[in-house]
């Protein structure tokens, strides 16, 4: 008989990183408590759970603290084995990890900076962002999800593009993701946000839009992703 599980997620409602964790837990049917953090006034629990980076998300599982969204996703997949999010075969597993890191190391940053810079700098970031999106679009091809028939690690990692990028480009007044240049990605976005599990976890678009509009000046000044 399994001991009573205590699963908590230290999160922020507007964060795409904590969204990843909640989506994974939802996909696996793991009951959990969401602990909302005020990023301007971080809780003692957060500071104790992630002393090195002091960032959300953190997964707390029976007292063990696991930070960093991609690391949390692997932990979740290894701990609750129903509905796997990583492929089993070594090469496919390696490729899933490769694409998730590509998203975090190159794509998100280029898209973010495209929104908050101007002139030549903005053009440079937009070129980088487009190159990344092109690579992802090619990689996805005609598949329903990056994970094949079901949502997997790469889809979860790419959720930033499904909602946040659209909101950010609206606030910034630029166009990055569009159906002409990236037909596969746009089709993927439609399918991803239409999924019941995803809809249950996503923050409301209008609320997200409002928060980025209100923080626009502050973000323009710092370019920081902590908003």
């Amino acid at each position, binding site marked *: 008989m399994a001991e009573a599980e205590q699963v908590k997620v230290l999160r922020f409602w507007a964060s795409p990183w904590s969204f990843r964790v909640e989506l994974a837990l939802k996909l696996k049917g793991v009951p959990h408590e969401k602990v909302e953090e005020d990023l301007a006034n971080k809780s003692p629990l957060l500071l104790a759970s992630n002393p090195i980076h002091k960032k959300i998300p953190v997964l707390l599982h029976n007292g063990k603290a696991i930070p960093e969204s991609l690391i949390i996703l692997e932990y979740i997949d290894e*701990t609750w084995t129903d509905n796997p999010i990583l492929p089993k075969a070594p090469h496919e597993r390696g490729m899933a990890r490769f694409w998730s890191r590509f998203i975090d190391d190159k794509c998100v940053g280029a898209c973010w900076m495209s929104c908050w810079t101007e002139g030549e700098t903005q053009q440079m970031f937009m070129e980088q962002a487009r190159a990344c999106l092109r690579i992802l679009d090619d990689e996805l091809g005609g598949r329903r999800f990056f994970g094949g028939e079901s949502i997997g690690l790469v889809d979860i990692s790419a959720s930033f593009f499904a909602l946040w990028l659209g909101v950010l480009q609206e606030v910034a007044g630029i166009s990055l993701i569009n159906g002409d240049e990236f037909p596969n990605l746009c089709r993927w976005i439609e399918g991803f946000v239409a999924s019941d599990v995803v809809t249950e976890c996503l923050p409301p678009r209008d609320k997200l839009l409002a928060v980025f509009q209100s923080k626009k000046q502050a973000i323009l000044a710092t370019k920081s992703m902590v908003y």
Partner: protein
Amino acid sequence: MAAVKLIGSPISPFVLRTMIALSLKKVEYELLPEKLGEKSELLLKSNPVYKKIPVLIHHDRPICESAVIVEYIDQVWPESGYGAILPADAYHRALHRFWTFYVDDKLFPSLVAIGKAETEEAKAEAVEQFRAGLRLLEEAFVKLSEGKAFFGGDQVGFLDVMLGCFVVWIEAMEEVLSLELLEEATMPALHGWVVSFRAHEAVKEVMPESGKVVEFFKMIRAMRMKAAADATN
């Protein structure tokens, strides 16, 4: 035709990581070094996204990114050689991966900054940042090793491989720049760990000679200083 090929050479700490992993597993492979300043067609074809080494090619399928490659090696050859590299339980795996992210995102860039610093002030700042990072790893080592020789306990584990690949570079930079980076006084546990790591048979097999790394570091420093001087003329 070798079933396992590795593009790169051990002078790159990221390639060295993968060589240590293959050595721990006693897997035979063909090493395909790249020429400095040139990228082979095989590399460009196998890693079109980053065009960087290391790339492992197994049964003609490439795997890129050193951390991804080491996890792949561990999964494909789970029991070979010295056995598992990743820890057995999910929480310790998460801890090894967490510190690996830290090494790659924070520690390694500060090591690079030391080598690139153009003023004494910049160098001192970079050195302090690097040492601060090592002090965190000292604490992590004490917790994870539980009194044993390695981050992985009795066995060389994932974090040992992912951090240990920089040991010869840290030593080379200490020699060339007359600095102490891995201070025995403030980091006694890590100091002991370096000795154990360097003494491991599988590591000794692939670790590049200190002299070679010192020469290489001096060469790239000279190239960088010349490029900077040329740019200001």
